Every structure is written in structure tokens, then in C-alpha cells.
């Protein structure tokens, strides 16, 4: 470990891979100059006053490239899609309905998410204590909750395939595949269409009993659809006739829920909290989980390695950001790059923390810095 | 019942692969109810000889017979008291004495009754529920003796049982052992380094030579019991055996 000196006259930035949890601490103890993270860690910085946002992910360069950029999606194993399409369609429908709910009730969604993720607890960041509900109220509006696999969204995924190839993270079946093959490998929008149709009809077809299934997700408000669907299950039951009823009441995360369609229990759903998208993909490969809420890049790399899953439709887009400390001389991307160049010239290149290699945030940060002619060094 | 040892020899192969001839060619006969002591230089094979008689080791050559039957393994007819303390520290005194009977499947009541009898014989009644660590060295060896007697063996093998005791306790134990032996009358083979002890206790003393050892001489002790250590006859036998030993050990190391 240790920093390498900046090379030549080029501007460099050191990227430090880290779990997101310690990032606010690292920032406020001057161990890093900024971090690129998913929500609600961007909101954590602004609400607690530790840092400020340089750029939300959709605004990062190259200009226009990241508008509506892909983020998390609903994915399922191909075998269950073939054998139990009724179940897959029903779950898709619930997800779509939940996304509508969030769009209509962002504050309620923030509260339910804060309940799931933090038990609505206060959080302490150094000298500042903030309420998690407030953090999420700041965070939820910066996300775009949509279930629509639009052309732009597909294009954004294709952009990621290109970036991941360039970074050397794609080595398998997608390495040399043409765009059409890539898309047919990655996506299956059938369940989305069916779900839309059922919602439009106002009735969900009751699937046959499926025993116990498992759905993986990550502790981020990107997956608020799951949180609202479970925490306000009564609403979904009453409105759509489909619900995930938690096995036990109380605050905090729920690990088991009953899938109820038209008043009938269809399946026991284990809700598996993972640590990262790639970990969820491993679980899917082992058939430990059959469904996942997961970032599309981990799904892409997993499909590339032969994991039998398909991406069904998005959960949300955008939702990450680059944060620097509150007193940093950077307020937007331009001034950030100027700062980075100045610090590189002083021989003290900026240290920016990022989630693991190949994550959306990693790919975006590298691409944006590259576009601004800044070389990325990996701290070892 | 007689005990015959016929041309017994025993060699060991050490971990280094060297051969150690412990016993060369040992032959003797012990008469019924006889008390015999074995003396000899350290490392000459006394313990080995006892172990072979007890059936714990097999001889390289020759055989041992008890009552005309060859000894091929441990048998309830023989009890051995080891050189080191061998009481089970997790058992009370009474349970230690009852061990042999327990192993033989004797009922609880019966074995405790027998154990109490021998506990009384060695004069430790009040220590029935004590653990070994609460006893002095001398008391422990008395418990070991009681345990051995409790199974009512034909032969009692004792490997330097009083070696670790101080002079006084040792003398007292010798007197006690003789009293017990007189009451129960079995063959006793008693290994010791102390010529004094050997002369005080035994009917005959077997003097072993250095390795590979055999019987150098068998000394009769014709004195009536109880014997007086300070008598001239006692000193005579003692002097004779000491001289024998002194000539036996070429080296003192």
C-alpha cells in the first residue's frame, strides 16, 4: 500500500476502493478528499454537513452520456422464468406497482425505507447526529424510479458493456459479441410486458403455489420498491390484490414475507440482504436466490461468466454522486478537475474513494476522469 | 501355588534402533506364600521382570508360569503396585480401593464392603472420602496396597513401593506390610534399592547383576520376624548383601 508519485506532468487521481460505510468517516478525517457512492451516502454527506456534492452521477462527463443511466434492475434465474412464468410476472407486477407508489408518495417512501434500512434511527457522523428519515427524504428525490426498459436505458446498458470491456471486466461470452447478441443475452422483457398488461387489466393472475423462494437485495434506497411493497403491504393488497406480507411486524429489515395474490398465499419469500451486487450474483449462480434486485453491471459481468439469469426491467436510474469535503475548493465538475490538477501538480494527488471495481460508480468515475484527461491511479 | 520363571530374557529396541538387552537369562522359583525381595543396580531390569510376571510385557525368550500355567497376559490372580504413584486422582480413596472389584463387575454394595475391609487393614478408615491429593506419600502407597489386596490376588508384585518415602514413614510402612502379609499370606515379590528394607522384609533376597542381567545370587534371610534392625545378625546379612552389590556394579554412574 502507499501512494505512488504522480507520473510526469499528467494530472492524476488516486482511487481507493472501499466499502461505502466508512466513507463519511474517511472524508471527515481527511484520509480521502472525496468519494463516489450510491445513495443515501451522497445525502448523508449533505444532510450531516460533512461534504457537498460535486456532481450527481447523471451530470458527470462526457456530457449527456449518463442521463437516465442504468442502475438497479430486477433480475431472475432463467430456469424459474421458464418453469414459473406466472410467479415471475406477478413479482414484476408488484415491483412496477411499488415504483408507482414511490413516485406518488416520495415522503412516505423515504419513511418506509428509513424504517427498513435504519429502523428510523438517528445516525451519528462525527459531531453531527441526523435522523435517517431526513437523510432518505433528501436522497429519494435524487433517484428516478422507473420500471420502463426504454431505448435510452438499453443504450445505457450497452454503454456499460463497452466500458466494462475496456476495463477488462468482461472476458466471457460477451467479450466479442455484437450488440444484438449482447441484448438478447442480457434482457428478457416478456415478464415486464405481461405484468404491465395485468396491471392495466386491474387483475393479477394467481400463480400456482411455489413453496419457498428467495429474493436478494442490497441495503440501499435504490431498492425502495421492495421496502414499500413489504412495509405497506396492506395498501398493495387492497389496491392490486398482490402483496408481500412480512412474517413479523416491527421496525428494521424483514427477512421473510408471504407472497399473497388475490388473498391466497402463493409463496414464502426469503428476503436476502447481500453486501454487494456481485455477491448476489454468486448467490443466484448457486441457486441460493432465484430473484435479485441488483445493479446492472454486476448482472452483466455475471451473465458474461455464464450465470443463468436475465435482466427483466429497471428499478430506478441514476442515484449516485461524487462528494467532496465541505471546505474543498470544488463546487462542480470543472472546479473539481482544476483542483485535481492543482493537487497533482503539488505532488499530492486527490484521493477519491469508490465502491469495488466494476461497480457503476467505479466505471463512471473512471470514464469521467478519463474524459477530463485525468489519469486514474489505483491505491494498492 | 508356585511361581516359576524359566530362562527369561528380554531385549528392547530403542527409538534410535539400538538393541538393549535388559534381562539375560533369569530362572528362579518362588514358593507358595513366600516373601521375596529383588535388588540390583539401577536399570538392570527389575521393573521389566515384574512386568513380564504381571503379563504386561512378553519376554523375548523363556516363560513365566504361575501354578504350572504359563502367564500370557494380565490375570486377576496377580496385582501389581507400580514404582510411581498409580492411584486415580479423580477417585476417592474408597473408590480407588474398589477399582479392581468394579472392573470385575462386583456389585456396588459388595465391593464397597470389601474395600472398607482393606481400608481398615491399612489403617485409613477416616480417609474414605478423601482424594489422593489430600494424602501424604506414605498414605497413598497404603491405598495402592489396599487396592491390590482387595482383589485377593495370589501374587502381589511391588515395584519399589516405598522409594519416595522418608526413612521413618518407610519403616512404619514396612512393619505394616508385614502385618498385612502375615494376615493374608500371598506370594509377594518386592523390588527395592534399599538393602536394609530387603533384609527387614523378605524370606529370600534375589540379587541381580548388571545388564544383561541374571540372578547373581539368592540370599536366604533366616531371621525370625519381627526383625531387629539393630541386631548383629541383621547387620551380618546386610553386610553380605551390600558387599555382593558393591562387586556387581562395576560403574557407579
Amino acid at each position, binding site marked *: 500500500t502507499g501512494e505512488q508519485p504522480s507520473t510526469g506532468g499528467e494530472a492524476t487521481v488516486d482511487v481507493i476502493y472501499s466499502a461505502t460505510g466508512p466513507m463519511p*468517516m474517511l472524508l471527515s478525517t481527511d484520509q480521502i478528499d472525496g468519494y463516489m457512492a450510491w445513495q443515501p451516502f451522497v445525502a448523508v454527506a449533505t444532510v450531516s454537513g460533512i461534504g457537498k456534492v460535486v456532481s450527481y452521477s447523471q451530470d458527470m462527463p462526457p456530457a449527456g452520456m449518463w442521463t437516465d443511466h442504468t442502475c438497479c434492475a430486477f433480475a431472475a434465474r432463467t430456469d424459474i422464468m421458464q418453469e414459473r412464468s406466472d410467479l415471475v410476472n406477478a413479482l414484476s407486477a408488484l415491483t412496477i406497482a411499488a415504483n408507482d407508489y414511490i413516485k406518488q408518495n416520495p415522503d412516505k417512501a423515504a419513511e418506509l425505507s428509513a424504517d427498513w434500512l435504519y429502523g428510523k434511527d438517528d445516525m451519528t457522523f462525527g459531531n453531527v447526529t441526523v435522523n435517517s428519515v431526513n437523510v432518505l427524504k433528501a436522497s429519494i428525490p435524487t433517484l428516478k424510479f422507473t420500471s420502463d426498459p426504454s431505448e435510452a436505458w438499453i443504450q445505457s446498458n450497452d454503454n456499460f458493456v463497452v466500458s466494462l470491456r475496456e476495463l477488462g471486466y468482461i472476458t466471457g461470452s460477451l467479450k466479442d459479441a455484437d450488440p444484438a447478441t449482447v441484448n438478447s443475452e442480457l434482457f428478457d422483457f416478456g415478464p415486464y410486458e405481461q405484468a404491465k398488461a395485468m396491471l392495466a387489466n386491474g387483475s393479477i393472475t394467481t400463480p400456482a403455489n411455489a413453496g419457498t423462494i*428467495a429474493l436478494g437485495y442490497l*441495503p440501499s434506497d435504490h431498492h425502495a420498491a421492495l421496502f414499500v411493497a413489504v412495509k405497506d403491504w396492506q395498501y398493495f393488497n387492497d389496491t392490486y390484490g398482490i402483496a408481500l406480507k412480512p412474517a413479523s411486524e416491527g421496525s428494521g429489515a424483514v427477512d421473510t414475507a408471504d407472497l399473497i395474490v388475490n388473498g391466497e398465499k402463493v409463496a414464502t419469500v426469503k428476503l*436476502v440482504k447481500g453486501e454487494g451486487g456481485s455477491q*448476489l450474483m454468486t448467490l443466484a449462480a448457486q441457486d441460493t436466490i432465484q430473484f435479485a434486485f441488483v445493479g446492472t453491471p454486476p448482472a452483466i459481468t455475471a451473465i458474461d461468466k455464464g450465470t443463468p439469469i436475465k435482466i427483466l426491467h429497471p428499478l430506478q436510474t441514476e442515484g449516485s454522486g461524487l462528494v467532496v469535503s465541505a471546505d474543498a475548493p470544488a463546487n462542480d465538475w470543472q472546479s473539481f478537475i482544476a483542483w485535481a490538477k492543482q493537487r497533482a501538480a503539488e505532488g499530492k494527488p486527490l484521493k477519491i474513494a469508490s465502491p469495488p471495481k466494476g461497480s457503476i460508480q467505479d466505471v463512471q468515475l473512471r470514464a469521467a476522469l478519463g474524459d477530463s484527461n485525468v489519469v486514474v491511479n489505483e491505491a494498492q | 501355588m508356585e511361581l516359576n520363571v524359566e530362562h527369561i530374557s528380554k531385549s528392547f529396541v530403542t527409538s534410535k534402533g539400538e538393541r538393549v538387552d535388559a534381562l539375560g537369562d533369569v530362572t528362579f522359583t518362588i514358593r507358595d506364600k513366600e516373601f521375596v525381595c529383588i535388588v540390583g543396580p539401577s536399570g538392570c531390569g527389575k521393573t521389566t521382570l515384574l512386568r513380564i510376571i*504381571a503379563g504386561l510385557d512378553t519376554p523375548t525368550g523363556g516363560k513365566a508360569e504361575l501354578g504350572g500355567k504359563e502367564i500370557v497376559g494380565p490375570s486377576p490372580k496377580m496385582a501389581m503396585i507400580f514404582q510411581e504413584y498409580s492411584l486415580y486422582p*479423580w477417585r476417592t480413596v474408597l473408590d480407588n480401593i474398589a477399582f479392581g472389584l468394579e*472392573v470385575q463387575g462386583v456389585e456396588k454394595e459388595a465391593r464397597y464392603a470389601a474395600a472398607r475391609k482393606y481400608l481398615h487393614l491399612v489403617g485409613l478408615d477416616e480417609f474414605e472420602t478423601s482424594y489422593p*491429593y489430600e494424602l501424604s506419600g506414605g498414605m497413598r502407597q497404603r491405598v495402592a496396597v489396599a487396592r491390590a489386596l482387595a482383589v485377593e490376588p495370589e501374587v502381589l508384585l511391588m515395584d519399589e513401593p516405598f522409594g519416595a518415602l522418608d526413612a521413618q514413614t518407610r519403616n512404619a510402612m514396612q512393619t505394616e506390610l508385614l502385618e498385612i502379609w502375615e494376615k493374608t499370606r500371598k506370594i509377594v515379590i518386592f523390588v527395592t534399592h534399599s538393602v536394609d528394607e530387603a533384609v527387614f522384609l523378605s524370606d529370600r533376597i534375589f540379587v541381580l547383576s548388571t545388564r544383561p542381567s541374571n540372578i547373581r545370587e539368592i540370599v536366604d534371610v533366616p531371621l525370625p520376624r519381627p526383625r531387629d534392625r539393630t541386631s548383629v545378625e541383621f547387620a551380618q546379612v546386610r553386610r553380605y548383601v551390600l558387599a555382593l552389590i558393591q562387586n556387581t556394579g562395576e560403574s557407579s554412574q
Partner: protein
Amino acid sequence: MRKYLKIVLPIILIFGWETVAILLNNPFILPRIEAVVAVLLEPTKNILGSGSLLEGAGLSLYRVLLGFLTAAAVAIPLGILMGRYPTVQDLADSVIQLLRPIPPLAWLPVALAWFKIGLTSIVFIIFIGAFFPILLNTVAGVKGVNRTWLETATVYGASERQIMTKVVLPAAAPTIWTGLRVSLGIAWQCVVAAEMLPGTTSGLGYMIMAAYNLGQMQVIIAGMIVIGFISLVLDALFREVEVRMFVWQGRYQ
């Protein structure tokens, strides 16, 4: 006097902590004691949606004991066999030596693949940590059984089963018990790793890692203190039982 000494350092440390915390004035690096105490003083309050400290402690204790008891149930019989029969030892040794140094954390993926999400995986990780100390101590304990005790039993004609239950087990018990004590401590050390398994949303280890992922120092430190404290109490219990069960060792007065 000695009692006072024992609390001197903790008191100094607490004062030092608080002083440094005030001087540093950076709760990220060192939170004030009050912040930690505040967490500890509300053991029934739900923390960050991962249950209360009390629930977490209870659940982790349950998991640790399950893993620990399973490990004991496998390691003690296997250890006895390995200690008593060189063949079994030879058979198992190479695999055990290779598996022993592998960190419990490295077993996470394997646990998940084999035992799926759920209690079994968690228990498996704790099992892995607790298994080897118990096994090694049992083997050492059984191998260390005084040869004389074994031969005494043989002389009295004990069967292999009697030797096992009446000699080997009681004699090795103190060493096995030490192994259990050490291993329970290690089982606690594994609970954080075990509760990192996906699908877990409760337990002290989970709470610590969740707090880590949310940057909540005061919860982490409170969790560490609770783990330290529970281990201390369990260790004291084990010692207490030791003193009662093994009086016969004569070590405790």
C-alpha cells in the same frame, strides 16, 4: 491492595479515553464515552433496524453455543479416537493439519454454497473456529494419560471400554475442558465473520458490521464491549465449573 490494582488501569484508560476524546474532538476517531454508554444503557432499544443489543446478544449467544456444542460433539469423540489409536491419528492428521490454518472468514463462500442461507451456515462458520482447539486438546489430553494408570487398569483386567470410560475419559477431562474453554472464546471471535453471511439481519456480529457499513462508531464500540463482556462471563463460568469438577487435581484451595 491487589484488588485495587486491578481497577487502576481500567480507570486510567477510561479517563485517558475521555480526555483524548475531548482534546481530539473528533468522534469519528474516538467517540466520547457518553456516546458509547448511551448505547449500552438502552439495551432493549432497536439499533439501526438490526434489533436491540439484548436481542442481538441473545441471538449471537444462541448461535455461538450451537456451533460450539456441535464442534464439541464432533471433536471430542474424534479426538479420543485419534489420541488412543495411532491408526486413526495417522489417517486424519494430514487433512486436519491442512484445514486448521484456514481462516473462518475464508470459509464463508463454502458455507454458503454447501449449507445455503440460514442458521446452518452461520453455525458452520462458528463450528470451524471452535473445532480445532477442542480436537487438539482432546488428542493431547488422551495421549497424555499416565501410562501407569492405563497399565493399572490392564492389570486389574479392565476391558477396552472400561479403560475408556473409567481411565482415559476422567484423566483427559481437565485437558479437554481447557480446550473447550479456549474454543468457546474463539467461537465468539468467529461470530462477526459468521454474521457477515448474506441473509443475516441480526446478532451482535451483524450489528457491528452493519454499524461499520453505516459508519456508526459508537455502536461498534458498544458491540465490542458486549462481546468482550459475555466472553468474560462465559470464561468465568467455565473456570467455576473447572474448580468444582476437578477438585481432585488438588490445585485449587
